[in-house]
């Protein structure tokens, strides 16, 4: 009996150990990646690096056009994806009855999420750049990134809407509210933090993607800042790809520096999402 108990205790401790190791293994790569990039990239980051255009075949100067390009692409994506994504989520969560039609929409969303990003890039090239004649432009790139981001936004927004207690809706209706008044005045405000978190995480992915903008928006070398949505632009992920693989004799610290800026861009957005979520949790009244 005693022996059996001891063996079970050991089994349990071994089990805990294995699980702890698995958990630590997820921390290790991110710590190594972030640590290495910041450590090797930090020396390259200077005021000039952040505020000047590249010079000398991109081997000197800064990366401002790429930073600005990624900023506009991300903003453009947001402008397109937020109304459509949230609208679709409100429809699915609040209005649509369960039917063959909504099942079809859901299957489409799931499959959209599984499409490889390079396929989005080619789709954007075909539809926005060539067929709609937007050319290689911020507009075409933003639209392509928006379609790629759409499933993430719809899913998280729908989840956030469904998390709002049904009793709020029933009470609002019983007080003479229409369904739209109920959604606008009770349901949506309560779901905003969850929706925002999803939006930021989706945009974060859009900001870091290379393949979708490869054929639709990104310029190899374009030192001036974009002046309109119809301009092509440099962008951080594509610039990183270019200076790492396409330009021989590129100083290594510039590559790490660019990676650090891209990483910083994404980490700041991530941090923002975390702050939004935790502040909303503290204020939530249910």
């Amino acid at each position, binding site marked *: 009996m005693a022996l059996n108990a001891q063996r079970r205790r050991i089994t349990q401790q071994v089990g805990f150990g294995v699980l702890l190791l698995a958990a630590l293994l997820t921390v290790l790569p991110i710590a190594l990646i972030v640590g290495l990039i910041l450590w090797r990239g930090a020396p390259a980051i200077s005021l000039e690096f952040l505020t000047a255009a590249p010079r000398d075949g991109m081997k000197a100067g800064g990366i401002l056009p790429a930073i600005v390009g990624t900023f506009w692409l991300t903003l453009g994506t947001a402008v397109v994806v937020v109304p459509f994504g949230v609208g679709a989520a409100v429809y699915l969560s609040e209005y649509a009855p369960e039917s063959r039609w909504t099942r079809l929409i859901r299957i489409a969303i799931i499959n959209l999420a599984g499409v490889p990003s390079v396929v989005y890039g080619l789709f954007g090239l075909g539809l926005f750049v060539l067929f709609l004649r937007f050319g290689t432009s911020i507009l075409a790139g933003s639209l392509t990134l928006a379609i790629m981001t759409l499933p993430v936004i719809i899913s998280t927004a729908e989840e956030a809407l469904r998390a709002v207690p049904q009793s*709020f809706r029933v*009470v609002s209706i019983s007080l*003479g509210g229409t369904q739209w008044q109920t959604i606008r005045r009770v349901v949506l405000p309560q779901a905003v933090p969850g929706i925002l978190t999803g939006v930021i995480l989706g945009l974060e992915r859009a900001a870091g993607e290379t393949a979708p903008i490869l054929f639709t928006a990104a310029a190899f070398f374009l030192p001036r800042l974009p002046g309109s949505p119809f301009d092509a632009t440099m962008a951080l992920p594509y610039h990183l790809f270019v200076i790492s693989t396409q330009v021989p004799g590129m100083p290594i610290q510039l590559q790490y520096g660019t990676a650090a800026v891209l990483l910083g861009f994404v980490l700041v957005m991530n941090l923002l999402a975390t702050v939004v979520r935790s502040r909303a949790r503290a204020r939530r009244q249910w």
Partner: protein
Amino acid sequence: MSNPDPVKVSIQHLSLAYSDGKESLRNVSLDVRSHAITVLFGPAGGGKSTLLRTINRLNDLTDVVHVSGSVRLDGEDILDPATDLISLRRRVGMVFARPVVLPMSVRQNLTYGLELAGERNPARLAELVERSLRAAALWEEVEGRLDDPAISLSGGQQQRLCLARVLALEPEVIMLDEPTSGLDPISTGKVETSLQELKHEYTLLLVPHSVQQAARTADYAAFMLEGELIEFGPGKDLFTRPQEQRTEDYIEGRFG
């Protein structure tokens, strides 16, 4: 007995079925009189909540597969598809078993329905806030806390806020579905006292949380069992000399 009060809600041969085959109503006929408390009581699953939710058409939110018969409010059949549900729900207010305060301040909970109805006059809103809180016996307790989150009130206060929220809309009929089921005896007493006051102005329909509460509050009482109305009459008769064996068994605690 003096002249009975006029009939406010007349339910005739009402039958209803949900798509999942759950709790339904079978041929229920019942006259709800104004300026009185009509109590619907009986074991769980007897159709009491379903009946309430039919009168303000809240059942429209649920999967109802069959409705027949009629429910007349001041002679108008509210089951008619052309019924204006928004105005119906303002005329027939409802308080639920669990107090559900909306995630906003005490004051906003009270003005919510009014603003939806288009009332914007601040003086009018303030007047209705105070009057409805007084009528629900809550004014003294929350007078200085109107802008606090409603969720910060105690359970009993939240339930009286829910009652006040309905009163603010100045309805004609107030339905209360086990409004005191989550409350302590003192809070329950306060709510019951409010109801006795309110019945002079409104038509009240109450699903009580116990037979004792039914007997305490009923001007008229209806005993419901498995979707059927077993017995209906003035409360003082029904609880002292029930005509039906099943009513008597339930009142005396032999089942349910």
